[in-house]
């Protein structure tokens, strides 16, 4: 009964989405304010119905209703409760409903926090979001309904893929989807602006905080996926240039370009066309990511059983959205205008270079990810493009970006004297150079590592010096806290995010350049070493978990004779799917991780063991979190809220004046 209610609720949500899109958009052109006013309540209604449907699906998973097909194929009665809840989005159908739920949440949030927007704009923005929602709801209802019944009902479920039975499964998909779907807001704002032909700095100011929040979620989602793969897949990699990862990375790159371009449009009114185009591309790539991951053209942890109907549907949907929005862009963009002028050396030009580089990087990832699929689809042979391609191409493209991250904030808008910027940065450049030489003499084993740490120093020092310069500009006697508070949050957001990039770069270079790994054959009592750490295989025992049995090794790690850690890697076999899984043991530290994975037992009772020493790997995660926090700070800037309040006051006072007459 409950699943049928959920199904019905999805249908009602579809009706709401129809009402939310067609009427308000039509109304915005015919100036029918009643039709336009429908957008907000319809968005609220859609949110309620989609949430209810999602609740129904979670309920079906929680009570182990194996008469529902998606429950039977993704859950099991022995699965702990929290994984049963997470299993809701463990399969294709449920994850699609999660996508739709996220869209409904974003739509509802836009309808709530947009009181300051003109009626026409909000009608169009919500209308476009409704159109996207219609596409996805139809996809769900016609090709992948999570409420489909299974007759006769299964006695028990096929269980959630053991790789997915992890805390990461609870956090990673919702975060990532919040990011993906969040770009639909920027997209809808862009389409609404194109429809109305109005594109000004107010438009940029409205869509900027939404884009920042979406970008923050995407950053966290990608970080979480990488962090999860690192400890879960059992061999210590954290980024594989796998097509599914690339699918999330492309919108991130374009999204990063977009938030920088939005800054120019808001501050100076320039780059309008460009910003709109980026918003369209960012969301299109999010859709493409969904297509890649969900249509079954790729095999990975993320891909589910293939159904050609689904792939075709998403492909058509993609063609309509991308084709439609680009045609609209081609038709309307010339009217938008170019905006303020700027000189060759200015904040605008540095941001333009940043945008070009980021977009080129996204294009290279696009080529490497889609070219093999394209060839395969045309039956021209099977090829794959491995990590070496991405590394050789991506790194050189990012080097100027890293250089500019430090320079950009020092460059003034409109026009900046080059000599002045050079003067302010010369000591930083010198310090970076000295630091690089010291690194070269002391610890760095390769030119790549020297370059990585030098870039980290360059970014951190320049960013810190920019902060000092800013804080110094205050009347004497101002307290430090007051000085810090006097800078807007968006400034702090930029500073924090840039510093995060520096930390991230350090982590990546140190791991890539100085990690060591050792595959050895060990029996209980043997020792091996990696880096300066000695690992002793002390014990091997059979243990059993709630839905698996495992062999657990106990290793004692010593460094210069003193004990550092006891680590217990496991080799698990899950009882339902009879699937073996390596559960690696990780000893995390500030400046290094130790990583042990247990391989296969040999006939004579010895085990293949991989021990790894990974310097500064935590800095990668730290950097990502700091970058995301920067996005949060920037999105919470006062001016976005202040404008809202001021506009509301103006309206209130206008009403008060008019009332007596």
């Amino acid at each position, binding site marked *: 009964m409950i699943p049928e209610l959920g199904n019905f609720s999805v249908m009602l949500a579809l009706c709401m989405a129809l009402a939310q899109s067609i009427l308000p958009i039509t109304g915005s052109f015919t100036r029918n304010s009643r039709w336009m006013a429908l957008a907000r309540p319809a968005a609220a209604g859609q949110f309620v119905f989609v949430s209810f449907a999602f609740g129904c699906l979670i309920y079906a998973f929680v009570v182990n209703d194996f008469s529902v097909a998606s429950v039977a194929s993704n859950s099991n009665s022995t699965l702990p409760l929290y994984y049963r809840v997470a299993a809701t989005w463990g399969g294709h159908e449920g994850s699609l409903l999660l996508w739709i739920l996220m869209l409904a949440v974003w739509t509802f949030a836009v309808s709530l926090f947009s009181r300051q927007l003109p009626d026409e704009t909000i009608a169009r923005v919500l209308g476009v979001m409704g159109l996207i929602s219609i596409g996805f709801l139809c996809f769900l209802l016609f090709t992948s309904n999570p409420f489909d019944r299974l007759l006769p009902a299964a006695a028990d479920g096929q269980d959630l893929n053991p790789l997915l039975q992890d805390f990461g499964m609870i956090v990673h998909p919702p975060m990532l989807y919040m990011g993906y779907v969040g770009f639909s807001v920027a997209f809808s704002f862009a389409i609404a602006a194109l429809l109305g032909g109005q594109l000004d700095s107010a438009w940029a100011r409205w869509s900027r905080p939404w884009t920042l929040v979406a970008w923050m979620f995407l950053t966290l989602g990608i970080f979480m996926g990488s962090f999860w793969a690192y400890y879960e897949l059992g061999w210590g990699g954290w980024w594989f240039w796998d097509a599914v990862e690339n699918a999330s990375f492309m919108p991130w790159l374009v999204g990063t370009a977009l938030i920088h371009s939005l800054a120019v449009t808001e501050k100076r009114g320039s780059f309008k066309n460009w910003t709109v185009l980026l918003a369209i591309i960012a969301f299109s790539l999010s859709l493409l990511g969904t297509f890649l991951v969900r249509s079954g053209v790729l095999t990975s942890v993320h891909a589910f*059983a293939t159904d050609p109907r689904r792939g075709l549907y998403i492909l058509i949907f993609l063609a309509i959205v991308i084709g439609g929005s680009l045609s609209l862009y081609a038709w309307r963009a010339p009217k938008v205008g170019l905006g303020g002028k700027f000189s060759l050396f200015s904040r605008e030009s540095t941001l333009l*270079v940043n945008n*070009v580089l980021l977009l080129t990087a996204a294009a290279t990832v696009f080529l490497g990810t889609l070219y093999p699929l394209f060839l395969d689809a045309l039956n021209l*042979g*099977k090829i794959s*493009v491995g990590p070496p391609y991405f590394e050789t191409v991506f790194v050189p493209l990012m080097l100027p970006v890293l250089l500019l991250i430090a320079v950009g904030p020092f460059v003034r808008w409109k026009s900046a004297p080059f000599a002045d910027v050079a003067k302010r940065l010369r000591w930083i450049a010198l310090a970076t150079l000295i630091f690089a030489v010291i690194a070269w003499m002391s610890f760095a084993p390769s030119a790549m590592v020297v370059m990585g740490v030098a870039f980290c120093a360059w970014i951190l020092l320049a960013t810190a010096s920019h902060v000092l310069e800013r804080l110094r500009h205050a009347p004497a006697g101002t307290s430090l806290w007051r000085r810090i508070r006097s800078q807007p949050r968006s400034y702090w957001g930029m500073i924090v995010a840039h510093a995060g990039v520096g930390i991230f770069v350090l982590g990546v270079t140190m791991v890539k350049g100085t990690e060591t790994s050792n*595959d050895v054959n060990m029996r209980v009592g043997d020792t091996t070493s990696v880096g300066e750490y000695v690992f002793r295989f002390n014990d091997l025992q059979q243990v059993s978990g709630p839905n698996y049995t495992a062999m657990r090794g106990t290793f004692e790690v010593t460094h210069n004779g003193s004990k550092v850690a006891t680590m217990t890697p496991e080799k698990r076999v899950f009882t339902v799917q009879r699937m073996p899984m390596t559960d690696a043991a990780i000893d995390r530290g500030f400046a290094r991780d130790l990583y042990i994975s247990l391989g296969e037992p040999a006939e004579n009772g010895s085990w*293949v063991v991989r021990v790894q020493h990974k310097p500064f790997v935590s800095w990668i995660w730290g950097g990502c979190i700091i970058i995301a926090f920067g996005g949060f700070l920037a999105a919470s800037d006062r001016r976005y809220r202040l404008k809202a309040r001021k506009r509301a006051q103006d309206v209130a006072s206008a009403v008060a004046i008019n009332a007596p007459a």
Partner: protein
Amino acid sequence: MKTRHKRFALVGVGLAVLGLAAWLILSAFQKNLVFFFTPTQVFAGEAPQGRTFRIGGMVEKGTLVHQPDGLTWKFIVTDMSKTIAVTYRGILPDLFKEGKGVVAEGKLGADNVFSAETVLAKHDENYMPPEAAYALKKGKEANAAQQPDSASAVATDSAKGAK
């Protein structure tokens, strides 16, 4: 500088950057394309010597052996028509099993043994790597072309293997 000159300079710099990027990308792309060959193709000598490529198929039952050093594995990959011997040093993926699909990336040695640098298995029990399935399908076709009589028997066999 006049505005027009500046604009030219900007466009010029942009084009130069794009050109450089395009050159970088295409040359790296050329170098790092990894082609896929089925065991039959490798047997026919279509695969390049000394360059990394991928093979796929099914791990033949009863062929997986541990070498004396305790770290190196040797097994045979088949597409039901031809076979190829593979060596791999290190930890095999969790879902690597005899009688299941596999894709390996590495180089072909002079002794016609494929030494794999990476072995990819699937992430999930239920699915076959598409490349492995493709190799089995091709192998089946090759068999059908060679021995029209026994084709049906082989076909059912490999269909079972693909499931």
